[in-house]
């Protein structure tokens, strides 16, 4: 874009109307915090995929016998792998939370004629998530 001259008076210019279609830049998402947040949310879904792949590798190792399994668990114990897992876990928790935050937009819960406020729905969801996680954790530990 540049500074174009002002319209000159005089003859009215005959023309063909020309609708200008601005192009969307590939960096459209940096111009607004909300968009950045959205992009991070979308990117962290890759971590979910990574976990699925990890699980498949685990199953594969299991089916190939104790040596393969041992090799895999050894690799899991390396500092690199532990670091990676911590990063993945953080991203995964972030991803999960973002879905809790948007949950109220998809759910309208009414008690009587009053709408339940979104913040309560979010809190409820998070509470449920913690309870279920603890229950599973307890199950694993107690077996």
């Amino acid at each position, binding site marked *: *874009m*540049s*500074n*174009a*001259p002002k*319209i000159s008076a005089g003859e009215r*210019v*005959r*023309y063909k*109307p*020309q*609708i*200008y*279609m*601005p192009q*969307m830049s590939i960096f*459209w*998402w940096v*111009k*607004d915090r*909300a*968009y950045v947040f*959205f992009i991070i949310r*979308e990117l962290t879904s890759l971590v979910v995929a990574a976990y699925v792949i990890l699980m498949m590798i685990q199953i594969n190792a299991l089916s190939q016998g104790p040596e393969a399994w041992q090799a895999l668990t050894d690799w899991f114990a390396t500092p690199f792998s532990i670091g990676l897992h911590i990063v993945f876990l953080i991203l995964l928790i972030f991803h999960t939370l973002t879905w809790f935050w*948007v949950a*109220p*937009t*998809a*759910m*309208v819960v009414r008690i009587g*004629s009053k709408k339940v406020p979104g913040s309560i729905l979010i809190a409820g969801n998070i509470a449920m998530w913690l309870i279920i996680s603890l229950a599973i954790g307890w199950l694993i530990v107690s077996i």
Partner: protein
Amino acid sequence: MEQTITLQVQRYIPEQYPEPYFQSYEVPLRKKWVILDALNYIKDEIDGTLTYRWSCRMGVCGSCGMMVNDRPALTCATFLEEYAPGPVRITPLDYFGIIRDLVVNTDDFMGKLKRAQPWLITDEAKPLSEGAYKQTPQEKAEYEQYSMCINCMLCYSACPVVGLEPDFVGPAAIALAQRYNYDSRDEGEDQRNEELTGEGGIYSCTLVGECSEVCPKAVDPAGAIQRYKATGAVEWWQSVLMPWKGKS
């Protein structure tokens, strides 16, 4: 001396220059002035060629939406003072074709509204002689929020999907479909589903959620879309698990 503020306004006059450019105007910074008052001041006192739409100046006709410092806003409901000391950048609504200066092409949008089939659909027409439908205040409350849309199109400019996928029917149109779907007098949901669960329909939405943030009338189109998806999912599972209960 009266305080002033600079408005950097995007201009586009097709017969004069093939691309948009910026022009700066200095206007008084008056209390109670909204951005639209400043534009009117420019038009009346400085430059009669500046072009934009407006009408009601009370936030209800939906004409005056523009990008103010890159965020979609109703210019008749946005105070100039909030942007002091300036400068303020005024550009046309994002993701729309520009006809001239701040005037965008709304033909597509009008077509999208129609895709929502925004009229009461009933299996059988009720004759006027039978009087009014009954509808309790609670039943009215079910759809009321979605009936508040003024078609200002701010939500379209807040939605990157609209920009990336021009066929996406968009937030306001889906909210409008829901306005009728949730109306106790309406029986047209199936008809609307057929249109809105297909190409460019509700599943194009990736839930950025900004549409609801910018909506001046608290319509919450993002919520309308997610509720639509939720209903769609339930119906899909029903049709898989209980095919005999399928749609009539």
